[in-house]
């Protein structure tokens, strides 16, 4: 088991290393290079030389990269240029909001995706299957930012039920306000992902329905509800775990657009702000944190999958 985890990590190492080089090298895209960022584009040659010495920019690139990597591994991405605060501190402020949204969106997507998949898998080719397949296609095809706008128009502008801009309220402080703020962004993201979930789960359910053990269970005279509810679901949900995990991982970094629609103060919006103000240390920090979470969750899902499905061997 531990060997499996280590091997999986070993496979990821080159990916992480390459990605870290790419992220580190971004700094050289600033007009005037990293030095221009520190002293401004119109600095005198003396000021540039002094700053180069002070920040170690006159050292060989490899040394600079290793230095950056070493600091990054300790969570030190430097100071935000515009925020004048440590990058990690800024990210830490936004992370809880993003996690709230990720969890809420996952719940919404499961609540929509699982019933849709079961209903359409039970009678493949029937009208209900076709309607629900069309729904999945629609859920996937409608851009989240447009869906978000439509939801704002309906629930905020017309009905005045929910706020059009969502703030972050920790759920343990004021559950009602937190839910009111999360409802629309979570619905927007959740609908989109329910389309993916429904497709995957339907395919895997249809496959399971043809299996021998299902025929056995039916010929034993088990009620259909029990055949589907306990026998099939248990098997069909296995691959599903991977997808749900992938989705969770995606919500953390990929909710950028949804966060922008609802001006939700998550990690994604921090990244957009960083890009529009060309705050490179902040951009690097955001991307590294999102990447690490994304890969970490993916790995956790792999391991979990191998753990709950005894048919998968660790070797």
């Amino acid at each position, binding site marked *: 088991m531990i060997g499996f985890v280590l091997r999986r990590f070993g496979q990821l190492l080159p990916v992480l290393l390459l990605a870290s080089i790419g992220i580190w090298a971004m700094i050289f895209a600033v007009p005037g290079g990293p030095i221009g960022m520190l002293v401004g584009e119109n600095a005198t040659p003396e000021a540039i030389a002094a700053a180069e010495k002070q920040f170690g920019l006159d050292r060989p690139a490899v040394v600079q990269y290793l230095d950056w990597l070493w600091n990054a591994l300790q969570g030190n991405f430097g100071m935000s240029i515009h925020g004048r605060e440590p990058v990690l501190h800024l990210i830490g402020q936004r992370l809880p909001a993003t996690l709230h949204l990720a969890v809420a969106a996952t719940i919404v997507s499961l609540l929509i995706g699982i019933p849709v998949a079961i209903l359409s898998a039970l009678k493949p080719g029937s009208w209900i299957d076709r309607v629900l397949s069309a729904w999945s296609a629609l859920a996937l095809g409608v851009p989240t930012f447009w869906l978000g706008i439509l939801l704002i128009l309906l629930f905020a502008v017309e009905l005045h039920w929910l706020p*059009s801009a969502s703030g972050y309220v920790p759920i343990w402080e004021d559950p009602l306000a937190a839910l009111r703020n999360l409802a629309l962004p979570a619905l927007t993201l959740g609908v989109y992902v329910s389309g993916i979930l429904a497709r995957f789960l339907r395919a895997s359910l249809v496959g399971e329905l043809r299996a021998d053990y299902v025929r056995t269970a039916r010929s034993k005279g088990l009620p259909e509800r029990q055949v589907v509810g306990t026998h099939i679901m248990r098997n069909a949900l296995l691959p599903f775990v991977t997808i749900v995990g992938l989705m969770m991982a995606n919500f953390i970094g*990929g909710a950028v657009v949804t966060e922008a*629609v609802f001006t939700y103060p998550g990690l994604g919006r921090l990244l957009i702000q960083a890009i529009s103000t060309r705050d490179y240390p902040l951009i690097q920090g955001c991307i590294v944190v999102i990447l690490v979470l994304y890969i970490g969750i993916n790995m956790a899902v792999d391991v979990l999958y191998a753990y709950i499905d005894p048919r998968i061997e660790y070797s």
Partner: protein
Amino acid sequence: MKLLHSTRSVLQRLLRSPGSALALLFLLGITLAAILADFLPLNPYAQKLVNALNGPSAANWFGTDEVGRDILARVVFGARTSLLTAAGAVAIAAVIGVPIGLVAGFFGGWRDATLMRFVDVLLALPAILFAMAMIAVLGRSQVAALIAVGITGIPSFARITRAQVLSLRRRDFVTAVEAFGGSSAYNMFRTILPNSWSPIFVQIVVLCSVAILLEAALSFLGVGVAPPTPSWGEMLRTGKSYLHEAPYYAVLPGIVLTLTILSFDTIGRALAGILENRSEVVTPAKVGGTP
């Protein structure tokens, strides 16, 4: 050549399904509008402040925006931006991704391992984030958006081509070329590639929908195509500020954008069914990102 030969029968089978026929018709209309935009009586830049935020009318079918420009004109010219960016992005993805997949699958070994590691790096970040990081480096422009979206599409082409090569690699007609002393390059590009067109072609269509979605998302975030160039994502971004006064501003361009994405997706799916008997298509950018 086989592809050209059967184009007619594929088209006939596509048109047999009402959904694909409608999608094809819609895309044809959008493409024609984008190409002929200059000859239509539409001006996407003409401002008329007295007309700002007027609802749909006989003169302005889609209404006017915050500076009195015709929204329909901007949607039509926006189609040009969207389709051009998507076409360029898909071309970049295919031109880089397909040879990567060919070489990785054909030679295997260290070349396979190295190339696919690079592909993994591209997949390690959600597509939208990767594109944003690229734009942070390249600066904001249509070309930057095109390149960024294109690079995120490389992995899907590399993987699909590689899988195809692996399934063909040991087939008799490939070993025969080797036995006759045909070079590896000849074998890859003249023997294997022509037999791999259908999954690649399906992926091209599917990726068009992904690329349009991504480009619109980038513009919506304000990092894509820079104004005043009309783009659908940018229109939704601005329209969002006028939801109370002018709901049609964000709704109508959104309908066109959504129909375009759905049309490409519908046709990609139908082609996958016709050309390869698949019902599912791989959309890594979609699974890998949530635009």
